[in-house]
């Protein structure tokens, strides 16, 4: 055998080995899903190892709304993330678990998660696939063993079909559950259809009050500036109305919930919580990680005069909220008219699509 002939045989052998696994097997075909990014939004960095498919999203949606995930089949993810409340928990301060246990953090809204890099108020989960499994086994939430959920799902023909459609076979694993729920939650969007978005698109005008609110929202709090500002944009700026960071906004001078600090063990992270998006904020009362404020007016008043300058790890971005202005008082020193204008502007961020889009609704109803 010559050297060249040997090389040829070698290539053929390699080819045969690489194709052997697929011979005689029906290929698994899924339908790609293209996320329709709202105009003006930055492009998201979607997970490359979990491409969106129609089949994966549908499976994820079924899992999200199926109470079989909980210990006594009484609660689904959707129980505490209701579309009618912007995917939050029905106006409750704290959610209540399957055995009546009350949580200690306010239910977070679920939208535009494709742009987030960490999840939960304390940022403890680096991905949606991991986040989505956490409430299942959390003793104050669904209180169920994830592996027991796997067993329950495997017994259901509906899920045998759905897992086969999404992943190529009917095997149910926690990893696949997480991937499917990640896909569904990545598709939940808020943007493009609010009054504010229509204003940006030039198809609708803001009222004078809303316009004033927008100017205050995007203005800096600076004693040297001739115009007042509420300095909201530093943390809630851009099309997504959040910077996705974990920060201490000065709620307390003595911390009772350490937030990120309890996750990392670092004193310098104490008091830091995720900066939430302000899109759909009118839907998601009460506010802050512990739901301490019932209304947007209370929230605005906190930022106007209630930020604690000695709060540990107060974020440097909050420096404008603890300045002393010419009037002598510390804070933003906004008038009642200005505070009301801010609330009016925040209400322009409401996008009813989150409540009406059938793609987000419970598929079992």
């Amino acid at each position: 055998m010559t050297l060249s002939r040997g090389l040829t045989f070698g290539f053929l052998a390699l080819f045969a080995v690489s194709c052997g696994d697929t011979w005689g097997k029906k290929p698994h075909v899924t339908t790609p899903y293209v996320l329709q990014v709202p105009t003006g939004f930055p492009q998201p960095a979607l997970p490359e190892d979990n491409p969106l498919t129609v089949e994966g999203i549908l499976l994820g949606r079924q899992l999200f709304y199926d109470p079989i995930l909980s210990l006594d089949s009484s609660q689904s993810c959707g129980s505490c993330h209701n579309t009618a409340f912007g995917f939050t928990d029905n106006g409750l301060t704290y959610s209540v678990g399957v055995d009546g246990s009350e949580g200690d953090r306010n239910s977070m809204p679920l939208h535009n998660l494709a742009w987030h890099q960490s999840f939960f108020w304390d940022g403890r989960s680096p991905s949606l696939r991991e986040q989505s499994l956490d409430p299942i086994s959390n003793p104050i939430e669904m209180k169920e063993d994830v592996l027991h959920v796997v067993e329950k799902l495997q017994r259901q023909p509906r899920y045998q079909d759905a897992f086969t459609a999404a992943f190529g076979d009917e095997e149910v694993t926690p990893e696949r559950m997480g991937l499917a729920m990640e896909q569904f939650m990545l598709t939940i969007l808020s943007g493009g259809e609010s009054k504010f978005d229509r204003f940006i698109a030039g198809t609708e005008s803001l009222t004078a009050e809303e316009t004033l609110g927008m100017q205050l929202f995007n203005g800096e709090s600076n004693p040297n500036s001739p115009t007042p500002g509420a300095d909201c944009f530093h943390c809630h700026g851009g099309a997504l109305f959040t910077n996705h960071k974990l920060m201490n906004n000065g709620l307390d001078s003595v911390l009772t919930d350490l937030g990120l600090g309890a996750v990392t063990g670092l004193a310098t992270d104490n008091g830091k919580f995720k900066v939430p998006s302000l899109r759909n904020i009118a839907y998601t009362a009460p506010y802050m990680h512990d739901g301490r404020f019932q209304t947007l007016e209370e929230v605005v008043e906190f930022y106007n005069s209630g930020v604690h300058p000695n709060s540990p790890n107060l974020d440097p971005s909050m420096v404008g909220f603890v300045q002393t202005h010419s009037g002598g008082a510390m804070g933003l020193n906004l008038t009642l008219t200005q505070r009301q204008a801010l609330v009016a502007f925040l209400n322009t961020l409401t996008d009813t699509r989150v409540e009406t889009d059938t793609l987000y609704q419970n598929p079992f109803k």
Partner: protein
Amino acid sequence: MKKLILPLLAVSLLFASCDPESKPEIVNLEVVVQPVFGSANTPVAYNSQQFPMGTDTVKFTRNDFIISEFALLDEQGARVDIRNEYAFLSLPDRNSFTLPTSLTPGHYSGFAFTVGLDSTINHGDPSLWGGTHPLNPAVNNLHWGWTGGYIFAAMEGYYQKDGAETPWLYHIALMENRMEVVVETPLDLTDFKTLTLNLDLEAFFKAVHSLSPNEDGDFSHSTFDNGLAHKLSENLSQSFRFASLENQTP
């Protein structure tokens, strides 16, 4: 004879690729920026280490930058521009970037870049950048939204004021505050190299203008600040210096 051509070609390619003396026809350049404090190049521990600053002490929590308009300086000092490249640095974690594999190998006399952007890019549509691009606002958190443009440098930390830890914040933006940086040093870029620059955070407060949060103001968003942001931009442009040039590790 024909039967031998393919094997001979493969063997010759193998030898060529293993030649330790061969030099690439094009190279890239990895750039690392490491934060230090003072001429002694004291390493900076973020959000913990206090440094003296006049009558104050300061510590650093955030040093984020948008960088563009890269260039190598040839041996006569003329710019060899590296166009359409952008970087986002967030020290200390995101502290490096790589300029593309299209640089002409050779000996250069320096490296230049701008902290900031040209006007077209700065005021262009930020939603067009890809999901992981340095100019994507979701990546860098430095876009001002509808007020327009990017913050070129976000410098933040704490200082002592009346015995209490107090935030300081300087967000340097606007075209008049773009910072041109030139680091003049012989650079042998005949191979794939890593250039390490020190960013001297003491020089950020002292290089041209001696400033301190306590005496000159503890925040600026680049407007209504009595020129503080511009002074800081002049300091920052003089705060980078050469640290090392080494072969890239495979």
